[in-house]
């Protein structure tokens, strides 16, 4: 399949983000096994004309343990998957408050099945996706720029160097490039 509009590209990047940084579940397992993740990232690379990430899909246990080491127990230095932390250097800081305020004012509700902080990468990505699908490109872009891009800017390289799975490192690095792109080409997407 091909991605022919910038907004589709944004959509793809958000999908990858939402899928990748959530605690590894069956859903991600299937997406990896079915090659969906690889396919999506490849076509995204094509669309944004970026080098496609060299993914090697590791065995499931490695995915699970790498995720924990990277994002839960901070085994490789502090890489919290929280956009607020990337911006404020603290949990539940001002950026966190800004984001949750934004969720509220725009009718986002996180249900019980999501048991992480609302400024978690995947939550922000999902929110942006919903906005995008509701034809709210401006909102999606705003989330991508104000919240997601800074996280990748700060942590992508650390993830790349620390990752042992061959999945999180390359894909995170790739998404960094993608999101940097969106902060440049706003009008194109908005159009």
């Amino acid at each position, binding site marked *: *399949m091909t991605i022919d509009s910038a907004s589709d590209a944004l959509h793809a990047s958000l*999908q*990858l983000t*939402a899928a990748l940084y*959530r605690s590894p579940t069956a*859903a*991600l397992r*299937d*997406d990896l096994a079915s090659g*969906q*993740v690889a396919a999506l990232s490849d*076509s995204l690379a094509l669309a944004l004309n970026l080098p496609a990430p060299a993914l090697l899909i590791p065995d499931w*246990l490695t995915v*699970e*343990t790498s*995720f*924990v*080491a990277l994002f*839960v*127990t901070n*085994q490789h*230095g*502090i890489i*919290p998957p929280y956009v607020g*932390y990337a*911006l*404020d250097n*603290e*949990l*539940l*800081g*001002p*950026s966190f*408050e*800004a984001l949750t*305020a*934004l969720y509220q*004012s*725009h*009718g*986002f*509700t*996180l*249900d019980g*099945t*999501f*048991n*992480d*902080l609302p400024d978690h990468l*995947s*939550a922000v990505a*999902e929110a942006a*996706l*919903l*906005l995008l699908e*509701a034809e709210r490109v*401006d*909102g999606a872009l*705003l989330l991508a720029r*104000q919240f997601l891009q800074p996280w990748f800017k700060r942590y992508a390289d650390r993830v790349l160097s620390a990752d042992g799975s061959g999945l999180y490192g390359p894909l995170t690095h790739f998404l960094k490039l993608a999101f940097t792109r969106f902060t440049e080409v706003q009008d194109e997407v908005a159009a």
Partner: protein
Amino acid sequence: MKLRRREFIKLSAAAVGALSLGGGAQAFMPNPFRGPPGKWFTREVSEVFSVCENCFWRCGVKVYVEGGKVRKIDGYVGNPKSNGMLCPRGHGAIAQTYDPDRLKRPLIRAAGSVRGEGKYREASWDEAFSYITEKMLAIKERYGTEAVAFFGHGTGDRWFAEFLPGAWGSPNAAKPSHSLCVAPRETASMWTFGRGIAGHEQIDWGNTDYMVLLGHHIGEDTHNTQLQDFAMALKRGAKLVVVDPRFSTAASKADRWLPIKPGTDTALLLAWLHVLVTEELYDRAYLEKYTLGFEELVKHVQEFTPEWAAAITDLPAETIRIVARELAAHAPRAVLPVGRHVVWYGNDTQRMRAFFLVNILLGNYGVPGGYYLSTPPVLPEYPHPPLPLTPAAGGCAGVGAAEAPTGFRPAADRNRFFGTATAIQELIEPMITGEPYPLKGLWAYGTNLFHSIPNVPRTKEALRNLDLYVAIDVLPMEHVMWADVILPEATYLERYDDLIGFSYRNPFIQARFPAVEPLWQTKPGWWIARELGIRLGLGEFFPWDDFEEYLDTRLRGIGSSLEEMRTKGTIIQRGRPFLADWEARGRNPFNTPSGKIEIFSQTFADNGFDPLPLYTPPAEGPSGYYRLLYGRSPVHTFARTHNNPILMEMHGENALWLNADEAAQHGLRHGDYVWLENQDGVREGPIKIYATQRIRKDCVYMVHGFGHQAPLMKVANSRGACDNRLITYYTLDVISGGAGLRNNFVRIIPGAPRPRHTPLAQLAERSL
């Protein structure tokens, strides 16, 4: 094309209007004209009553919440523990809740990895529970319920070291706060007065005129209330004598400092008894009325002259005499206040007996200015079927159950010592040897196995032998990252807990209310215990499903309610602090076999122990070695608070107290770094040298709890050095089961590198 979407977030139809950042938007668009943001107290603040958990004095506190975040913790007037004041740890506790290093969700050790390797995968609580349940039932099947040991420390230990093991049916429940802390004093007190000391050392500071601190470090062990009472006593002009090889903080306030040779305290106490007896400086009426065996004591102490003691203790005989006479002159308003952590040299119960005997001769037990009699609070249990057995975990709350459980094998440490409460360090060996029977499962709730239990290598070996090791904690401590299943507990600011009652002059009950929602998937201890209990088929013992209802029911049992507690925080009951109060009711406070204070203990005699205390000299170290002493810092609790950037800024690294002259001998200057090597060749460090006049030449001292080897704890990791890794040897107190920890010796190896650390400020930005 689409990836499988998650359904956890919804966009309501109400989402209209252009998306814009409101509220804290300035966070991203710096407005140069805007001053710094207003502080927390300029916004709307709510108050919640709670009980501090940053040490186990457990003061009643008021928690100030603003913007869904805890901003400040204070004591409050009307709570007998805090009286509106708080220690540094209580104030600093906030940083723990917002620590990104916290355990966030249940983890299960990765298949194929070994314990200690630290490879984990996330799990849902359900998954974690069923994993544990499966293993537990397998162990029960194969080895019996007794094969699971339960270690616990903290408010939740009521569930994990008492209730759950009791329901499950294992006598092998233990608390470090017993055999690694107060066991000797509790045992001695039990067999002397027929009463324990229990949580709050019952000294009538308000009326005492002469205090002798021995093994007591007020000001360094910042027990809030005690510190307040102590300070007031000093202001009142009470005289203070401090017996300590080290010029402690308390010593700096003292009228006399007795720099005693470590390990010889019993000799000093016997000499004091000698002076009091031979010079007849005791309260005859008191002794006749309340005590038994004084005559034997008179004979017993004849030979223990001050001169005899002087040779042993390295203190002038004259000073010993003078202090004894001054004590007598101020009696009964003169007191030797009992301290905590009395497991020193192995003869500790006898030392504590001698310690109490001095107090008895002063006639101060149950008398104003001496020891008051603490009364436990009245607080009925939530109705539940009787537990199969009553575990004898002991701890600060007193000695454990007296009689062995029926229908179960006795605790695996039984025949090793006389005392009734379980000795945590004695449960390690059975895990390795399988003697007297195998221990195959271990639960560690808030118990730092590697910083509290002596002989760490042995503990690690034991852990390797287990079939199941469950750790319930807040932080990824080193021992936690060895567990098969890691269960993240919510911090005390995020959870309810069972009601906390204290034996006291006037006993009281305090409640803990959650100030904020638990972060991530952390859960309260009581919830974890109940869920597991139910899955283990012990549901009948957890007949409640709503914890608020549980608390309310217990409170209604004393004519209060959860709602009342929510507004008061503390309920105070009436006690009977002094002998007079008991006599007025025609009651006898002494639950000894004889119903009197037993100066001479027939029970000890019958069990082959000295019925009256004797001095047994502790082992001496090889030449060139110093006796290793350790203690507390006012801003830290055990090994629990060392990932807290605020507290670490106050005291971020422990140093080795070394007599300045000795330091010069080694060519060491203040601030140099050295290695320490103990008698068994174990090396520890680097540690900074604190070259001081404040300590004797035959010993060194360091603050306990530093030197974590836990890479996941970014602040604590490798800051300072760990005393417990140097304590590879201990002398079992065959009466109480306490582990004498001060028979280890270290030599100093100069030339260690100065360690490099990320500046705290850098690490701490995250939590402030």
